[in-house]
């Protein structure tokens, strides 16, 4: 441990977003399928959503004047970290049920972990965000863990 992470930063572990509820439409599925170069007719027709469609459904829609100069929004779930240069991260996703037009889905995101490691060229900060997506019956549809690395 290099002691980079203050108690204040670590106190954000467990912080959760308000649930976000969205409806799935055939048109949105079709747009997503075309934009990703899908060749499967069930997606191009919007009968069922391709995997990863949940990224489209739950990407934050924020006013233009809240974007930073590089066009990115600040994730309010995150504290101000002592390191800010983002490196490649990873995704770990479980698909529990298919997503179809007309489904109402609710996502909740939780900042589940913050930790540091010594890298070859200095300290690295890792953080993890868990997203759970459920249908109106409360059943899990997609669960996703994002890990990001800062240097």
């Amino acid at each position: 441990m290099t002691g980079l992470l203050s108690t204040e930063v670590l106190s954000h572990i467990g912080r959760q977003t308000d649930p976000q509820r969205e409806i799935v439409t055939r048109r949105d599925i079709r747009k997503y399928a075309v934009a990703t170069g899908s060749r499967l007719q069930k997606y191009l027709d919007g009968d069922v959503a391709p995997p990863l469609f949940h990224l489209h459904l739950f990407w934050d829609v924020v006013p233009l004047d809240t974007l930073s100069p590089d066009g990115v929004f600040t994730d309010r779930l995150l504290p101000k970290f002592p390191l800010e240069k983002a490196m490649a991260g990873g995704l770990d996703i479980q698909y529990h049920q298919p997503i179809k037009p007309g489904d109402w889905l609710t996502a909740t995101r939780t900042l589940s972990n913050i930790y540091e490691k010594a890298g070859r060229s200095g300290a690295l900060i890792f953080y993890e965000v868990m997203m759970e997506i459920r249908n109106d019956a409360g059943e899990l549809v997609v669960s996703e863990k994002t890990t990001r690395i800062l240097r």
Partner: protein
Amino acid sequence: MNPEPSIGMALPERHHHCDVVQQMLYNASLWNGHRIHFDMPYATEVEGYQGLVVAGPLLGDWLHQIVDEWLDDAGMITGIEYSNRVAAFVGETVTAGGTVTQYDPNSGALTLEVFVKNDRDEVLAPGIITAQLQR
């Protein structure tokens, strides 16, 4: 899906030309305003990239598509673990592919190693996908 899966079986590969219109539509569909994907002077002069950066999750989608097209209606993807290691740039052609690494014929559970690589054989996005065949 034909023939039956076996360990070591390579899936059909797919080339993706990273087209600027596709990038625009993809990022618009997400509501992703990150300038590195569409603002060439910003991407090259401010961020120092060699060109417009292909959105990371699009490479992730191409990993899914390799397995999804191969499965067709014979099964579904149940999970993926992947990371974006190296950037792809608009104008490049990248190749997605994969190999079956585990297969249980009784349960229909499958594990596959998947990749997107560039024409210099650098792996941009490695991943592991789990899938379930209908039984």
